[in-house]
């Protein structure tokens, strides 16, 4: 395993007490250079990773972990880190507790007539270790896959064009009606002002009158210019209503020389 840096410098001084016995030098497995200790929790991806390291390092079969030995090593590891005042992540302590529990179960004398369905206390741990190990491998496999911007690079050629067409969005007529309905409903909720709904023909006529007038700011237009004979009476009425509306909004001025004479319309200019 290449988890620990290779450039290991032996420490002479610090002794570690394991089970009350002083160790003159750290067992090689447990040996961590001071620099590595700083990053210990980053070096291992967690308690499972550490445990796998300990197992691998001794070439042990994952299905046949000598729980006692591994547990002791693990706990030594943790003790040592605590001696060095390393803050230990809770996960490591949980694992230590789990190992201790398995160890204690293994030590209990076994009843011969032990019920068959009682699981070996190691089973759960081994299942988790195996599960973790396969994803650890999968992670290495994924890392080894050729990937963009490390192993492969896009091969592209430049395209020189002046203009790219941009299609315009389509709108359904219904969408406009629904939008307007929504606006009105919303407006009615806060409305201080009531929105008037003139017949659209009046609104349309107002626009048309304004459009005609805007063509000639100085000019006067006769009332009858704004509708045609074919439109009949209703045309005249709509135009009249439109003019009243425009007048009210201060958009046009209506002038009549004398009663019953021609009505003239004039845009208001400053």
């Amino acid at each position, binding site marked *: 395993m290449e988890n620990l840096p290779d450039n290991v410098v032996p420490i002479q001084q610090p002794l570690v007490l394991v089970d009350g016995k002083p160790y003159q030098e750290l067992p090689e497995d447990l040996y961590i250079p001071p620099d590595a200790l700083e990053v210990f929790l980053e070096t291992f991806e967690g308690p499972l990773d550490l445990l796998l390291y300990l197992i691998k390092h001794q070439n042990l079969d994952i299905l046949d972990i000598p729980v006692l030995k591994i547990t002791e090593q693990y706990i030594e590891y943790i003790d040592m880190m605590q001696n060095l005042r390393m803050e230990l992540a809770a996960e490591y302590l949980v694992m230590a507790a789990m190992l201790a529990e398995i160890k204690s179960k293994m030590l209990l004398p076994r009843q011969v007539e032990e019920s068959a369905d009682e699981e070996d206390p190691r089973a759960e741990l081994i299942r988790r270790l195996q599960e973790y190990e396969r994803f650890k491998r999968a992670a290495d496999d994924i890392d080894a896959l050729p990937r963009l911007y490390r192993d492969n*690079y*896009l*091969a*592209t*050629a*430049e*395209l*020189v*064009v002046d203009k*790219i*067409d*941009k*299609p*315009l*969005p*389509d*709108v359904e*007529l*219904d*969408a*406009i*009606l629904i*939008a*307007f*309905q*929504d*606006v*009105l409903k*919303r*407006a009615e909720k*806060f409305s201080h*002002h009531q*929105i008037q*709904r003139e*017949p*659209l*023909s009046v*609104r*349309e006529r*107002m*626009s048309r009158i*304004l*459009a005609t*007038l*805007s063509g000639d700011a100085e000019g006067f237009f006769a009332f009858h210019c704004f509708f045609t004979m074919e439109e009949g009476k209703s045309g005249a009425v709509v135009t009249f209503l439109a003019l009243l509306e425009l007048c009210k*909004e*201060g*958009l046009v001025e209506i002038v009549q020389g004398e009663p019953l004479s021609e009505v003239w319309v004039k*845009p*208001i200019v*400053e």
Partner: protein
Amino acid sequence: MDIKDILEASLFAASEPLSIMELQGLFLLEDRPDKHRVREAINLLQAEYKAKPIELIETASGYRFQVKSKYSSWVARLWEEKPVKYSRALLETLAIIAYQQPATRGEIEEIRGVAVSTNIIRTLEERSWIRVIGHKEVPGRPALYASTKEFLDYFNLQTLGDLPPLSSLLDIDLLPSRDVQLNLGDETPTKRDVKDDEKTPPPEPLTENIQ
């Protein structure tokens, strides 16, 4: 490894034109080709791509692969944007102008309760669906917007009067029971029936006026 292949790979991978010097820089000092050899390899590559739809050209800052111009009309379709959808704000603005015209921006904002972005107005003008038909004689002389003939054409309408009448649809909301009643009749209710059109000169007796 062939110099030409390395240059070809790099020219395709680079996002900018590469100068002869930059191309030399791809190689470690000990096997760095001289300018002459780089140029030679480039000439070979240029010849190889003669018959291809892309070419290796020299620009001010170096060499790059580009698509031959005769293919650009096809290739440009890659960037044809999918038509986006208009925003709700835009549709509402358009609807207010259509139904309440002529309207100033201030009036639209008052009805919508929020500011109308300049972008929306510009988009609608660019589409020729609205235009300024005058200015309101109030301080600031705000532009008055109205819908256009193009707007009517787009929606296949003769006049604004052909816009779906609002009142009847609002009524439907208020009278949810009517649909149920209509089911009893023998005529299938259609939207057309519900929309009593103001143009229809004498309002015919509506069959669904049962309540």
